[in-house]
């Protein structure tokens, strides 16, 4: 019963984080800011949904597969994001910095 409640809390929170990250991906003004929105869904959303499914499945092969999916996501998603950011930086995309705050334009 407690496991059920915990699992539903994790699943709903994961879906909510996914929605927030999707809205951020759509609404934020800059490429690097949009990367922040996508990072929310890749970390918080994915891990909370997987954790909720693990609590729902109990001990067994299904949980092992879910842990494998989570580990693969934790390995590959930051690597892909890093490669994407480095490629964008190499191609000359500069972050959007307000003029009155940062005098040194990077």
């Amino acid at each position: 019963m407690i496991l059920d409640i915990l699992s539903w809390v994790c699943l709903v929170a994961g879906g909510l984080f996914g929605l927030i990250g999707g809205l951020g991906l759509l609404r934020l003004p800059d490429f690097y800011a949009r990367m922040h929105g996508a990072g929310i869904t890749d970390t918080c959303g994915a891990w909370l949904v997987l954790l909720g499914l693990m609590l729902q499945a109990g001990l067994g092969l299904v949980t092992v597969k879910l842990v494998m999916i989570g580990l693969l996501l934790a390995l590959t998603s930051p690597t892909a994001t890093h490669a994407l950011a480095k490629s964008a930086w190499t191609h000359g995309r500069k972050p959007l910095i307000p003029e009155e705050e940062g005098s040194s334009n990077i």
Partner: protein
Amino acid sequence: MFVVVTAAIILTMALALTRAALGPTVFDRILAINMFGTKTVLLIAVLGFLTGRPDFLDLGLLYVLLNFIGVIAVLRLFTYRHFGETSET
């Protein structure tokens, strides 16, 4: 309750596809497609639990690898204009 999470994930995928269609630069599109792939993995996992057959998780594992290799390959192609093979000249 699985239906709620499935709907949230599908809505997020729709938002990511909108950004991929709108995106001003190619990096925005790649970022949106990368996020779309991650959401596909989650959708496969949740749909397996929704239909009571959590056997689709192997497909989720495969999709994680495909997504990663696809993003790296597209970035390489965009940067170097080829996939890394030796030139024929």
